[in-house]
C-alpha cells in the first residue's frame, strides 16, 4: 500500500508540474499578443510595452517558464492587478464558497444516486429500471447552466421560493443553506444520473458473482445481501468516479456561481476576465487544477485502501 501511495503521489506531482508548464507555454504557442488582448484595443503601444515588461512577456520563453515555476514553488502566484494583494490570498478567500457548493452537490447527488442505482440493479429489467435508466441518461445530458437558468426562472423569479443572488449572511447557516439549494441543484443534477448508472453497472457485476450466490444459498435476506455484501464492493469504482467528478463539478460550479451571483472561485475568474486581471485568472486556474489533481489522488488512494487489486495496477 505504501509503495502504491508513494508512486501515485509522485505521479500526481509530475502531472501537476506538466500541466503548469502547458498552461504557461500556452502564452507562447497561441498566436496573437496577450498584451493587446488583455489591455483592449484602446491601449497605446507604450502601455502594451510597459505591460509586457511588467509581466515579463518580453523575456525568452524558457526564462519565463523557469521564472514562473520558481515563483509558484515558493507560493507566489503574482499580484492582483486591481487590489495589489497577493493572488494566493484573493483566491483562497473565495475557495470556501466553491468548496461548500461542491460538497453539498456531491452530498445530495450521492444520497439520491447511489440508492437509485442499487434499486435499478436489484429490479433489473423492470419498468422502474428502464425509467431510472432514461432519467439518468437525460440528467447527464442536461448542461448545468441550462438547469441553473431554468431553476432560477421557475423557483426564484416566478415562484419566489428561493433567493436569486448571493451566498447568504455570514453566521446565519440556515440562510446560507437556503442560498445553496438552487446552485447545488444545478451542479449535482447530472451526478444523480451518473452515479445511478455507475452503481447499477457495478452492482450487476457483483450480484452475479459466486459469493453472492453463496450468501443466497445460506438463506440471507436480499436486503442483507444487497447492502452488506454487494454494495460494499460495488461502491469502489464509484469512489474513483467521484474523485474525478470534482473536476467536472468545478466546471459546473463556475456556471452556478455566475448565474446565482454567488461568491466563489468561478465567479472570481469570470469577473477577473472582465476587468482584465490576468494574474488572478492564471492563479485561480492553477489552484483549481491543483485541487482537481489532489481530489483524484485522494479518490485513488481511498480506492486502493478498499480494494487490494487496485494497488497492483500501477
Amino acid at each position: 500500500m505504501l509503495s502504491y501511495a508513494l508512486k501515485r503521489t509522485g505521479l500526481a506531482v509530475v502531472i501537476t508540474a506538466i500541466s503548469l508548464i502547458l498552461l504557461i507555454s500556452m502564452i507562447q504557442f497561441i498566436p496573437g499578443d496577450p498584451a493587446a488582448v488583455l489591455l483592449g484595443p484602446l491601449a497605446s503601444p507604450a502601455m502594451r510595452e510597459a505591460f509586457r515588461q511588467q509581466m515579463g512577456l518580453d523575456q525568452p520563453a524558457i526564462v519565463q517558464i523557469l521564472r514562473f515555476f520558481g515563483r509558484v514553488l515558493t507560493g507566489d502566484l503574482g499580484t492582483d492587478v486591481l487590489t495589489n494583494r497577493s493572488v494566493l490570498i484573493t483566491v483562497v478567500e473565495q475557495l470556501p464558497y466553491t468548496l461548500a457548493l461542491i460538497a453539498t452537490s456531491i452530498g445530495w447527488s450521492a444520497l439520491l444516486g447511489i440508492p437509485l442505482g442499487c434499486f435499478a440493479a436489484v429490479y433489473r429489467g423492470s419498468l422502474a429500471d428502464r425509467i431510472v435508466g432514461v432519467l439518468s441518461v437525460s440528467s447527464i445530458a442536461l448542461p448545468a447552466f441550462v438547469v441553473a437558468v431554468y431553476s432560477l426562472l421557475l423557483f426564484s423569479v416566478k415562484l419566489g421560493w428561493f433567493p436569486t443572488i448571493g451566498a447568504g449572511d455570514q453566521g446565519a447557516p440556515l440562510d446560507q443553506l437556503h442560498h445553496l439549494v438552487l446552485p447545488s441543484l444545478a451542479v449535482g443534477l447530472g451526478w444523480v444520473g451518473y452515479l445511478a448508472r455507475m452503481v447499477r453497472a457495478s452492482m450487476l457485476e457483483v450480484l452475479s458473482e459466486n459469493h453472492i450466490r453463496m450468501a443466497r444459498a445460506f438463506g440471507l435476506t436480499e436486503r442483507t445481501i444487497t447492502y452488506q455484501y454487494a454494495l460494499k464492493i460495488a461502491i469502489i469504482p464509484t469512489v474513483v468516479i467521484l474523485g474525478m467528478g470534482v473536476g467536472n463539478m468545478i466546471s459546473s460550479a463556475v456556471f452556478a456561481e455566475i448565474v446565482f451571483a454567488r461568491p466563489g472561485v468561478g465567479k472570481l475568474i469570470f469577473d477577473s476576465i472582465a476587468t482584465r486581471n490576468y494574474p488572478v485568472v492564471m492563479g485561480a486556474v492553477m489552484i483549481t487544477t491543483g485541487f482537481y489533481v489532489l481530489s483524484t489522488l485522494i479518490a485513488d488512494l481511498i480506492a486502493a485502501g478498499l480494494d487490494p487489486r487496485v494497488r497492483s495496477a500501477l
Partner: protein
Amino acid sequence: MSDQLFDSDRVSAGARWRDSTFMRIVREPMGALGIFLVALVVLGALFADFTGYSPIKLAMRDRFLDPSLAHLLGTDHLGRDLFTRVLHGARIALGVAFIATGISFIGGLVLGMIAGYGPRWLDSLLLLVLDSLRSFPTVMLALALVTLTGPSLSAVVLVVVIANLPSYARVVRAQTMALKATEFVLSARSLGARSWRILAVHIMPNLVGPLVIIVAMDIPVVITIEAGMSFLGLGVRPPTPSWGSILNDGYAFIRESSWPAIAGGLPIIIATLGFTFLGETLRDHLDPRLRQDG
C-alpha cells in the same frame, strides 16, 4: 427461374432494410425519439433562412413580445425573432460539433497509434502530456485560453479538442497495443511490411469503428461546451446567434420576460437529449462491448 431469383432478391432487400441499423434504432423508443430530436435540429439549421425574419436586425418596437403565430418563441430585448435566432444558432452548434469532433478524432487516432505502436519512451512522454491535459477542468481551461486569445469560434474548437482528444488517444493507444500482438499483424511484420503500412492497412481499420461511436457519443458534450462558452461570452461574438448567447441575453433580462431565457435553453435541451439518446442506442446496436453499464 429468373422470376424466382428476382423475387428472392426483392425479399432479401426488404429484409435487409428491416434489419438495417437505422430500422433497428427506430424500433427502440429511445432511438426513435433521438432521431426525431436530431432531425428537428438539422432541419432547423437547414431552413433557418426561411422564417421571414433576420436573426440580427433590430426592431426595438417589438421588444419582449410573447409567443404568437408571428413570433413562435417571442422576441428578445432588441425585438429580434427568437425562433429565427434559435434556428441560426443550430448552424453554429452543429458546425462547431462536426469540425471540433473531426479534429479530435483525427488527432486522437494519430497520437494514439504513435503512442501504442512507437517506442516506449515516446509512449510514456505522450501519456504524461495527455494526462496533464486532462487534468484541467474544461471550463477553467476555456477561461484561461480565452483570456489570452479573446473570444472566438476557433477558441471554442481549440478548447473542445484539448478537452476530448486525450481520452480518444488513450482508447486508440490501448487498442493499438492489443492489435500489435495479434497474429495478423505479426504475420504482416514477418512478411516485411513497414510500420506505417501496418498502422494504415492493418491496425487503423480496426480502430475506426469503435472510435467513431465514442466520438459520436461526445457530440452532446461538444454542443454543451460551445453553448456554455458562448453563455459566458467566451464563444461567438454578438450579434451572431448562438444558443448560449441567446440564453445569456435571456438570463440578463429574466425579470422583463421569461421567453428569451426559455428560448435559449430549449434548443440546448433538445439537441443534447437527441444526440445522447441516438448515441446510446447506436452504441448498444453497433458495439455492445463499449457499454459501461450491464
